[in-house]
């Protein structure tokens, strides 16, 4: 049953203009890498690649793609009321959430991971940044799962999950992270950077010490598992609305 839900959701997510727009979005970092390759100044290629992947993929592309797929997987159905067809079937709610996540998370991981791989290889693949690119690709895949689960939970809790998610990404992980270093303990981006730093500390370009590997891993698992439970809980109590 999980697989059936996942299959249907996958079809819905890939339909129409959205998939095309997401692909265009995913192509931007690679384009930047090409520009940087063409006009770039000589320097530490590993640092440059790390900086590019962190700023364009982990900070902008990954949360945005996960946000769109995560909230569209379940939230769109809940909003327009057609979720009632799914919710009135004798399927445990945890399977519904699992099915939705099983469609959105791999899709996000595949798209963003692919973008990371291409971008990193263009900029530094032949200049010693291939290992780093692989690490960032893995981090993007892990991040896809965590972000998607979080945003699925959000989309069950509120009808405006997308804007709430954007506020989290832009204000909490963006502006506040620069001012209050403590917020990094509650930031998925920092978990991913911590995981990458666990492989090789030189692969993280940003300022400030990355999280310890244990904290990063535990944080990622806790957010993913917590979001899943919250989503199931909220879906069990969800009142089907007639749309807005």
């Amino acid at each position, binding site marked *: 049953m999980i697989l059936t839900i996942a299959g249907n959701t996958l079809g819905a997510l890939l339909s129409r203009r959205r998939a095309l727009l997401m692909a265009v979005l995913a192509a931007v970092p690679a384009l930047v890498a090409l520009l940087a390759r063409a006009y770039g100044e000589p320097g530490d290629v590993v640092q*440059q690649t790390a900086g590019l992947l962190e*700023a*364009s993929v982990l900070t902008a592309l990954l949360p945005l793609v996960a946000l769109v797929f995560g909230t569209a997987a379940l*939230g*769109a159905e809940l909003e327009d009321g057609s979720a009632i067809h799914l919710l009135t079937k004798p399927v445990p709610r945890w399977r519904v959430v699992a099915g939705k996540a099983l469609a959105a998370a791999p899709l996000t991981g595949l798209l963003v991971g692919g973008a990371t791989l291409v971008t990193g290889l263009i900029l530094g693949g032949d200049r010693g940044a291939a290992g780093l690119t692989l690490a960032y690709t893995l981090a993007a895949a892990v991040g896809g799962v965590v972000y998607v689960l979080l945003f699925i939970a959000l989309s069950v809790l509120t009808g*405006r999950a997308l804007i709430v998610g954007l506020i989290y990404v832009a*204000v909490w992980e963006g502006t506040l992270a620069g001012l209050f270093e403590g917020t990094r303990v509650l930031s998925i981006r920092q978990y991913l950077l911590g995981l990458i730093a666990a492989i090789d500390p030189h692969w993280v370009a940003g300022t400030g010490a990355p999280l310890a590997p244990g904290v990063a891993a535990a944080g990622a698992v806790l957010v993913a598992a917590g979001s899943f439970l919250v989503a199931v809980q909220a879906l069990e109590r969800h009142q089907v609305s007639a749309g807005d």
Partner: protein
Amino acid sequence: MSGAAGGLGRGPADGPGRGATVGAAGDSIYDLGYRGYQGVRLGRAHAVASLVRQSFRQSWGMGRPGRAKIVPFGLAAIATVPAVVALGISALAKQLGAADMIEAASPIRYETYYPVIGQVVFLFAAAQAPELLARDQRHRVLALFFSRAIRREDYAAAKLLALGAAMLAFLLFPLAVIFVGRALLAADVVAGVAADAGAVPAIVGEALLTAWLLAAMSLAIASFTPRRAYATAAIFAVVVIPAATVGVLSELAPGQVVGAVSLFSPGDVLDGANAFVFGHAQAGPPSASMPSLAYVGSALAMIVVSTAVLVARFLRIEP
């Protein structure tokens, strides 16, 4: 339809009668009392003004349940926090007798305020522009609008005016807080106001430019989809992706390429225009110094294109 002779009673003389008139052949036609409107017709201008007022309220979630107000007012609160913090620090420093030192070191001044709250302003536009347009398309209300005195271009203009006004309020409120706060902090209130009065044209000018640019751009994007979520994501992406690109490129490939790319990034354009109105000749990403006037030109070009797209979209839209 009106086969029966003398059947249909129309006009004031007949009164609002709901009775049946018996025709020649014995069959009857029911007079339902429909009557024409004889009152004053308020016309196109009034209709547009009403739509502007209604849309302005919509963009703040007024007239809707509390849930709809959380996002706009929450964002406005976030945008005001730096102003309150800056005032608090100034007041504290004055008590400690270190006012001049703090004043010079403070990162929150009139000049730096828009860049500081930039992200929140983009979020407001991304969140509220679809609120103004999506429902009318989704629930097929546009046909009703267009069948009345309002023309298609009026609808687009009214929505632009409403969101622009809402964003202007959003942008000016925190700076008004600082302005009033600083005036009250000064020992001589009149002198305090006079000292800051010189910054007012720049503050208002940048707010106007920002409000018009972001309102036109986000409405133009939002007009292409009846789904609010997609519109929100698209508006945010159009601002954030170019900004991230410029940020990365300015480190990797300093020079004229970054400068040229930054002219197409709304966030960087507004920062550059902000530098211009506050009297800096140079602006742009740190590695590529550009004349700040170029950003004002780019902002105006973006305004023209966005407004044109918005109007053109509603001229062709299938209601």
